[in-house]
């Protein structure tokens, strides 16, 4: 990252992470990202998959999620393991497993995953639903839809329907919606050099426009009592709080709720309720950012939005 852009990025991090900002920056720029795997409980129980990996020479460390493990040592890339080819595991960052956990869908759903490719969260939702009910996994990009459909097959997710569709054009409702739109990926700078090297404040604004358009559309698919999780792997307020603030305004049909599990709290900072002199929805304080240097993961922004009954 060029020195001037780095300085801008650092200043912006300080505004959202305050005294954690230096640790976050150091982690994103200097540390090797850890690898996590999610055991696919649609196909096998956690214990037998862990034993299978350990027999092959993998050393794993438990995480707060019973089906997720940090890989400490492996004979090769986890994506080349037989367990991966067989759909017994998905290589997925720990922080990226949090949005489906917070959506917490119950069968029969239905669930809409509005920007679903390549399918990590879709297939996690499928396992949280134990293969029952319906998940409509939507993505607009034909190439990415192919990879989504393959991952759904690989993971044995019989409760997933894959559609190539612009989520803003959907006209079907669902009580559970996950919106994890494309973003600048600031929370993945430690493993995505392209995201790091192409980051600019202008790119942030380009993504923010798309994200707002998506949220405005999909939030209307939520019936009273329904729940939407908005998540990104980026920190920019323009792509997060401002998207929500502009899409929802002061509409009191919706409220942002704090659903962080106890184990996660110390790894997070609350959402902003003010940015560059603009007052935002007060309930945005219930949204949060995952501090990647604390959780040893990617960085994420997550908001749980409920439509009042």
């Amino acid at each position, binding site marked *: 990252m060029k020195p001037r852009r780095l300085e801008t990025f650092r200043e912006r991090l300080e505004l959202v992470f305050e005294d954690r900002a230096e640790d976050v920056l150091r982690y994103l720029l200097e540390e090797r990202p850890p690898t996590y795997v999610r055991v696919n409980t649609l*196909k*096998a129980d956690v214990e*037998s*998959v862990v*034993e*299978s990996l350990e*027999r*092959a020479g993998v050393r794993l460390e438990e995480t707060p999620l019973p089906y997720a493990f940090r890989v400490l040592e492996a*004979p*090769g890339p986890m*994506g*080349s*393991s*037989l*367990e991966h*080819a*067989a*759909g*017994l595991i998905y290589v997925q960052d720990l922080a990226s497993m949090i949005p489906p956990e917070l959506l917490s869908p119950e*069968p*029969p*759903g*239905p669930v809409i995953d509005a920007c679903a490719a390549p399918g990590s969260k879709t297939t996690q939702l499928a396992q949280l639903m134990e*293969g*029952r*009910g*319906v998940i*409509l996994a939507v993505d607009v990009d034909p190439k990415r*839809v192919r990879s989504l*459909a*393959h991952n*759904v*097959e*690989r993971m*044995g*997710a*019989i*409760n*997933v*329907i*894959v*559609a*190539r*569709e612009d989520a803003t054009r*959907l*006209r*079907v409702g669902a009580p559970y919606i996950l919106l994890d739109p494309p973003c600048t990926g600031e929370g993945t700078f430690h493993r995505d050099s392209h995201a790091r090297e192409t980051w600019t404040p202008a790119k942030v604004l380009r993504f923010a426009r798309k994200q707002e358009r998506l949220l405005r559309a999909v939030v209307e698919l939520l019936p009273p009592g329904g729940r939407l999780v908005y998540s990104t792997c980026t920190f920019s307020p323009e792509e997060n709080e401002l998207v929500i603030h502009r899409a929802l305004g002061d509409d009191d049909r919706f409220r942002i709720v704090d659903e962080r599990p106890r184990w996660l709290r110390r790894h997070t900072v609350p959402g902003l309720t003010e940015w560059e002199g603009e007052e935002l929805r007060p309930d945005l304080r219930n949204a949060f950012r995952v501090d990647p240097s604390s959780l040893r993961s990617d960085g994420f922004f997550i908001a749980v939005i409920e439509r009042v009954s």
Partner: protein
Amino acid sequence: MRIDGELRAVSREVAAALKELERAGVNVVSAGVRVDPEDRPSFYAAPFLDLPTLELEREELAEAIRGGTRVRAEPGAYKLSVKGVAMGAGRVGEDGVLRVRLPRKYARLRLW
């Protein structure tokens, strides 16, 4: 159920939802998991078919995915297992070679 001529394993609710999505004009690409005929099952069809189990060493399954491996088994379709963990489905041909149906990219990987 059959979707576009393919036999696919889907949840009960998916079958009903597909009709609703069709009415809503949603461009459905696929649903659930492709099973294929029982005598030539796709690798991922294993959980949905009642097949005899063929126990393999890790390296044998990797070779089968890379293109094929000779095994001591009667010709036919099998559920493939490594140390008791079901991995997928495959077929032993008349030539005694076990082959699996997976996207080609897996044949190029250095599987372990």
